[in-house]
């Protein structure tokens, strides 16, 4: 018997809840952690956010009514979870706590290009929703309508927010404005 995939439109009856969520995790965790990383900055926090999202899915499984939209659900949960992390950090400015090196430092292993690091640093200074729109549009490569669904706003708002973000970014990285 071929188990139904978790993305099937109706509730999967032939697989356990844990198996279904586990399969979704196997397929989508990396991509979601990468999105969260771009929103919160470090992998440990990004993994926490994604774990919370999947645990939320697991808890809410019996109440879900549209199994074709599970990935969308997870994206929403990841965006919301990332906002929670950033809020907590806003308060943490008052604490003299050492922090892990950011993902674009040598210790975190990875970004060889200073120009790209500068772009990410500038993105980190953008307002929350502008950053979310840029990550979802240029990294996750979602269509504006999909971004609108994830963020709970209209497509027009996505377009305006992206335009505003690029305009600010252009000023900060000294790129000619669009």
């Amino acid at each position, binding site marked *: 018997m071929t188990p139904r995939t978790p993305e099937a439109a109706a509730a999967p009856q032939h697989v356990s809840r844990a198996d279904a969520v586990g399969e979704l995790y196997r397929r989508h965790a990396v991509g979601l952690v990468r999105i969260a990383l771009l929103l919160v900055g470090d992998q440990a926090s990004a993994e926490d956010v994604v774990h919370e999202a999947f645990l939320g899915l697991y808890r*809410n499984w019996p109440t879900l009514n549209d199994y074709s939209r599970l990935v969308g659900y997870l994206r929403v949960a990841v965006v919301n979870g990332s906002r929670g992390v950033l*809020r907590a950090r806003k308060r*943490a400015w*008052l604490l003299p706590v050492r922090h892990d090196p950011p993902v*674009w*430092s040598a210790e975190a292993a990875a970004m060889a*290009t200073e120009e790209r690091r500068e772009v990410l640093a500038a*993105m980190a200074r953008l307002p929350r929703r502008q950053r979310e729109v840029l990550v979802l549009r240029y990294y996750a490569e979602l269509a504006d309508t999909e971004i609108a669904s994830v963020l709970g706003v209209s497509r027009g708002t996505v377009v305006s927010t992206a335009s*505003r973000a690029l305009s600010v970014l252009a000023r900060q*990285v000294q790129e000619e404005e669009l």
Partner: protein
Amino acid sequence: MSRLEVRVQEACREAADTVRPEVIRSLDLEPDQRPARTRQAAATHRRGRVLGPLAAAAAVAIVVAGVVVLPRLMGGTPGHPNRQTHTSTPKPNALAALPKFTVLNNTNAIDVVTTATGRIVGQLHAPARQGFAALAGTASDRTFFAVADLNPQTSCQSFFYRFTLSADGRPSALIPLPVRRLPGLPTALAADASGNLVAFSIDQCATGASGHIGNGQAIGNIGLFDLTAGRTIRRWTYTLGEDYTTDLSISADGRLLGYSNFLDAKYMVGRVIPTSAPPGPDERYSHIVTRRPMLTALSTSGRLMYAISGTRDLALAAYSTANGQQVKVLRRLPASTETGVLVVDPTGRSALLSMTHFSTRKRLYPYVKGRPCLALRVHGILKCERITPPQTHFVIIDLTTGKVTALPFRQHGPPSWGVVAW
């Protein structure tokens, strides 16, 4: 895609590729899963790195600026950064006419600061599991309003409060406003001189907690509480391509609201809307006063809108709310200025501006293997960039002469909306 869009995409991809699939923790789903790993557990997991990389990144380009550029802006002598949030460099003559107290929002608490000295004279903690989002003052310098949301944002709600200050600045307890809780995240707050009218902006957030995908199309609204009537008397919805506002202001008599938001997905505009306008889309009942502002604030009379605008160099200018004509350029600001909030004091004589400066100038020191640093390659050699958390400075700008005077307190972190009220 434009060159900038390509740069954004490449930067995101390079950072995202640092996440290697083989090192991601597995998901531990027990058959009898308890209701979620708690936030406390997550906090323990991350202990010692609360001040995260994103915050560090925010610091990077702002490193030097607060020390170097602000004195130039003020035409004074260079000060030096103080480790404390609240410093002591008062200029009594310049500050004497200002409101006695300034309230600062630190999200989890509100600090009451003596404006002239920067001394904290009172503190008010947010209710459990809430964080303050925005503040508003009244003409009395003793009555203030605050709006909070859940912290963490486990659901999307706004909570409105009033508090008063004693003669020596001690705050009362928070008094919930006699209005219903509103769905949505607060983005701005303003009150008229009497404190009877309170205007707010809320932004719909992504939904998903209930298992349903957020798909709403109304992105938020500006509303008006009449506290004498104890109800919301107006709602103007944001429409189409508009973005939420974070710089709401209201004339002293409560007749006019000023704010900025997006027009046709192209640029910001500063708008005014009469508080007597019927409910509906804000675009229908407001009119545009100025185009491409970064921040706006109404004068107490409502006859002028002050706006900071400009792409290369910034300027604070006054515009007539009747016809949009520029009345006066009050002050030019360096292009490197980042602004947060513009608040006109109750007398209408001066405005408070929160600001810092970003700079591309880097302070480097040698890389030492194993020591955390923000690393970059300079001519093939690994260097570390010195990270100094940015600080928000507060200045007052005389609305007649344009003269700028620094206030003797600062706040950790980059400038943000909702952080200060008079």
